[in-house]
């Protein structure tokens, strides 16, 4: 990729001496704390504001200065947008589910994460309830396992919950997800209810190996 720093210098150099151009640029970089070669959204305006201060000193003619600023603005816009938008690393919370008391913790943590994300109260409760069902199934049927809660920061903000265990697995998935399923151990509504509460529901299970249930809830 072309060197944005160098390109700015060339534009400035068209209006002032090379030495001045270099000092205007380096001061603008240190004052705005923006690296022209690693532009993030919003950076371009902060850098441009500092560059304009320098240009006001050395390019006295208003029209020329305006041209100079426009050239730099175009450059930063083009180069800034060739970079992918910065993505916050997804934040992940692991909750081991080893016994009955971990069910309360898992759903409490899930609720906290949703609250931090700005989920509505109703959505916080829905996610917490789904986590409670998944964690309880781990304790009841697989003895132990793990719940991971991940913040989704992509173009759709939300939360992903994965419940994983190495228990006996579910032999007939379509049966336990069907309306006619009658559980001997519970209400038989934990998985169906979870599917209803969440936006995405994905169940993978291999008898003898374990179960992985991945659910997502989005903010919008």
């Amino acid at each position, binding site marked *: 990729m072309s060197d944005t720093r160098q390109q700015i210098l060339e534009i400035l150099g068209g209006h002032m001496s090379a030495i001045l151009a270099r000092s205007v640029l380096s001061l603008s970089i240190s004052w705005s704390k923006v690296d022209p070669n690693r532009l993030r959204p919003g950076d371009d305006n902060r850098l441009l504001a500092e560059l304009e201060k320098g240009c006001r000193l050395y390019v006295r003619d208003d029209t020329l200065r305006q041209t100079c600023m426009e050239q730099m603005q175009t450059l930063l816009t083009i180069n800034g947008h060739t970079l992918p938008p910065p993505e916050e690393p997804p934040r992940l919370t692991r909750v081991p589910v080893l016994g*009955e008391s971990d069910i309360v913790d898992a*759903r409490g943590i899930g609720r906290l994460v949703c609250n931090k994300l700005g989920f509505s109260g109703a959505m916080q409760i829905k996610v917490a309830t789904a986590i409670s069902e998944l964690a309880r199934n781990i304790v009841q049927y697989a003895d132990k396992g793990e719940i991971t809660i991940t913040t989704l920061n992509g173009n759709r903000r939300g939360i992903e919950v994965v419940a994983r265990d190495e228990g006996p697995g579910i032999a007939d998935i379509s049966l336990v997800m069907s309306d006619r399923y009658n559980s001997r151990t519970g209400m038989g*509504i*934990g998985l169906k209810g979870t599917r209803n509460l969440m936006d995405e529901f994905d169940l993978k299970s291999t008898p003898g190996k374990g179960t992985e249930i991945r659910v997502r809830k989005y903010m919008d």
Partner: protein
Amino acid sequence: MTEISDTFRIPIIKLHDKLIVSIQMALSDRLVMQLKDDITTRIERVNITGLIIDVSGIDVMDSYISRALRDMGLIARLMGVRTVISGLDPMIAMTLVEMGLDLKGVSAALNLETAIELLDRKPAKTRGKGAAA
């Protein structure tokens, strides 16, 4: 999260002819089971006509908890005692409905006060008579 000791029990208060239970915490399965046992023994021991379970402080109501509450209501009814659940958060109620759950067989009231009024208004069935209906 509040840590609750392994021996903690949800208190059951007797007020005139009623038992009142106020749940003000996240319910673990152990607490739910203990409560079910405690309510059953208390109904057996003391002479009451109504049971109020106030759930205004509950964090969520999943299928396990709602089943347990329904069972408590059922057990109480078989012993001639009417049950009213009070203070259910509207958001939790909404979640229950979305999951396809309901608290069949137990009446609901907005808060403790209306729960008491509800129980006082309708005379309870005499203990032991026609309770299994």
